[in-house]
């Protein structure tokens, strides 16, 4: 908020000045420019006596007067962007208050009844856990009962489980694909395969889920193949068995994103100094040796940075596929936090509960980012922030 005030004030002040004395400003700007130029010359001539930082400081000091007026236009536009950002990104954060209220549209944010952590208690049903712990006395079995009986805890398990599975499979596939594609010597073939590999990324999740569904349906290719090899006699319904749901979701992600994710790795591989490979060759390294000792270590910084970024967004990945491919029979393993929010917050219009679930997700996401970032720092890699 403080920033906003600063922006608005200085922006507005700048504007009036700019409008009223536009001509004067222009003249001043030219004069100022002359000073700057002179200063640059001076700095250049005395290079031996002044270091870079001093030059910078001096030039900054000289610039600030006229430059501030020139910057007024930047300030105005910047202020507009700050207002926009506050409205669409920061204002919804104030809505987090809803999670601690019994929010009703009629009474609004200010007059709804305050209920404390009731909504969170309702979501987690700690009583179930405590009761199970008391009756069984075993923390693991109590945990199991808790997950099996409480919907929200199950959605947390599903979100993190599927997120991690997707992350691992898409990561490994993208790296393997990039390395193997890089080994292709035929330029035309390489280009063709790469172009085709991007294709699924440009399809919407609706189309991808439709395609995956059709392929796995009773008349789809997978069942045709299974029948052809007599692995099954009657077609197998993949969507009626909870055990298949997570692998299907992981495969959908791999199918859609492998080629796209490989782009960065391919770029990183192309940037490797060819002389390293020549040196390895002279030392007697074969294809595997070169991949193992040159390619992989060279792209490992890229891998680590992307891994950290993606761990932060792990919880965000669990919505569209699960929503589109999930059904009544597999809902125990298919529902994620976002679907929970949608069901309760939009479907049942319990805005407070939906917000509470959303807050939990945001907090976990931020924790994940901070943890993974500090791990990377410990490992001595370049960190994100």
């Amino acid at each position, binding site marked *: 908020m403080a920033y906003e005030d600063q922006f608005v004030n200085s922006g507005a002040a700048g504007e009036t000045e700019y409008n009223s004395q536009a001509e004067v400003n222009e003249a001043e700007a030219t004069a100022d420019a002359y000073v700057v130029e002179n200063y640059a010359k001076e700095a250049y001539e005395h290079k031996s006596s002044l270091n870079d930082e001093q030059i910078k400081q001096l030039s900054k000091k000289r610039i600030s007067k006229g430059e501030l007026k020139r910057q007024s236009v930047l300030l105005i536009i910047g202020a507009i962007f700050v207002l926009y950002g506050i409205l669409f990104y920061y204002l919804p954060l104030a809505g987090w208050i809803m999670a601690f209220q019994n929010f009703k549209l009629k009474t609004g944010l200010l007059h709804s009844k305050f209920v404390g952590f009731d909504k969170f208690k309702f979501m987690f049903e700690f009583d179930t856990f405590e009761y199970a712990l008391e009756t069984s006395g075993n923390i693991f079995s109590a945990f199991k009962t808790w997950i099996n009986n409480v919907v929200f805890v199950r959605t947390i398990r599903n979100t993190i489980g599927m997120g991690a599975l997707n992350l691992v499979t898409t990561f490994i596939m993208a790296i393997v694909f990039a390395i193997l594609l890089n080994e*292709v010597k035929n330029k035309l073939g390489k280009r063709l395969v790469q172009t085709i590999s991007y294709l699924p990324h440009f399809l919407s999740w609706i189309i991808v889920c439709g395609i995956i569904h059709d392929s796995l349906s009773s008349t789809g290719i997978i069942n045709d193949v299974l029948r052809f090899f007599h692995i099954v006699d009657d077609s197998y319904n993949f969507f009626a068995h909870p055990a298949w749901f997570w692998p299907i979701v992981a495969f959908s992600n791999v199918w859609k994103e492998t080629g796209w994710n490989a782009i960065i790795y391919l770029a990183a591989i192309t940037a490797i100094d060819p002389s390293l490979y020549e040196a390895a060759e002279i030392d007697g390294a074969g294809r595997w040796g070169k991949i193992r000792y040159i390619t992989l270590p060279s792209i490992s910084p*890229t891998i680590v940075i992307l891994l950290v970024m993606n761990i932060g967004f792990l919880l965000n990945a669990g919505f569209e596929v699960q929503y589109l491919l999930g059904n009544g029979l597999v809902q125990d393993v298919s529902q994620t936090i976002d679907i929970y929010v949608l069901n309760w917050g939009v479907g049942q219009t319990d805005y407070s509960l939906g917000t509470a679930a959303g807050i939990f997700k945001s907090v976990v996401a931020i924790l994940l980012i901070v943890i993974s970032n500090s791990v990377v720092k410990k490992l001595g890699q370049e960190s994100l922030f």
Partner: protein
Amino acid sequence: MKMKKDEFALNYGGSHGQEKELSAEEVKALKRMAHKHTKRMDAWGWAFVICNTIFLVLFTIVTLYPVLNTVAYSFNDGLDAVRGGIYLWPRKFSVESYSKVLNIQGFLVGAKITVLRTLLGTFTSLIANALLAFIISRKRFLFRSSLSLFWVITMYVNGGMIPVMLLYKYLHLTGSFWVYIVPGMVSAFNVMVLRTYMEDLPMELEESAQLDGAGYITIFIKIISPLCKPVYATIALFVAVWQWNSWFDAMLYNRMKSEYTTLQYELMKLLNSVMQQSGSANGNNTTTTSKQVTPVSVRSAATVVTMVPIICIYPFLQRYFVTGLTIGGVKG
């Protein structure tokens, strides 16, 4: 003295005769070694090449087959298609499904809205992102780092679905076309990609323009933007694909307003009826209950209509998204 001279010559390639002799011998030895080397590696090398080729061909087939299969189904006769068993080529050719798709009322409206939101959304979003990136990338701008931090935070923290939905309701964005355009106009990720690119441009360009008396707006339009064409194309592509493919906003905010439906949402309604059915106890035979469900050929035709525009465009924009991803992914 002579020794020294010779040494000098040897080190710096001055005496050609001697070096040539030596190197020729060395080259011969090296060639022999290399030949032996490659010969020894040949068996493994070939095995690798064969395995690699098989893997990549399989990968390509797995990627391409479902798409081609959908196209084949869409061109097949509707009743015949229900039997299944169509692979890469239609069994009974017919374009009836396409005329059926175009006769679905929501589909035409959805197509119009989708085209409109893609064009307008891409245009406004590109301008907004570029302008913000330009401001943040000015090295002398006073609030440079604070403004940048302000936007980076939005990448990681958001209010969540429900508060955002209520906000749009209060702003009367719900139930209007503008909900597709206004809220998603600035994306911090795209801004960071643009900023990285702009920061790499030489500072002297801006300085010389300033000496000529150009203001920041002029610098943005006349100097920075023409140099940023490749990265603008990248961002435009990202935004356009996102706009074209999004369906959730149509479902959440404009469910009741059929005049603002989108192509993807209409497709989702068609496909979802089938997907939900697989979950029913006797989901194996979709044929017996195919009455409420849209026939497979019509679904396929709708899918093809929805994906064709993007499939036609993306191969030509490859180099743009490759550069954009490399900037954004590694440095972003």
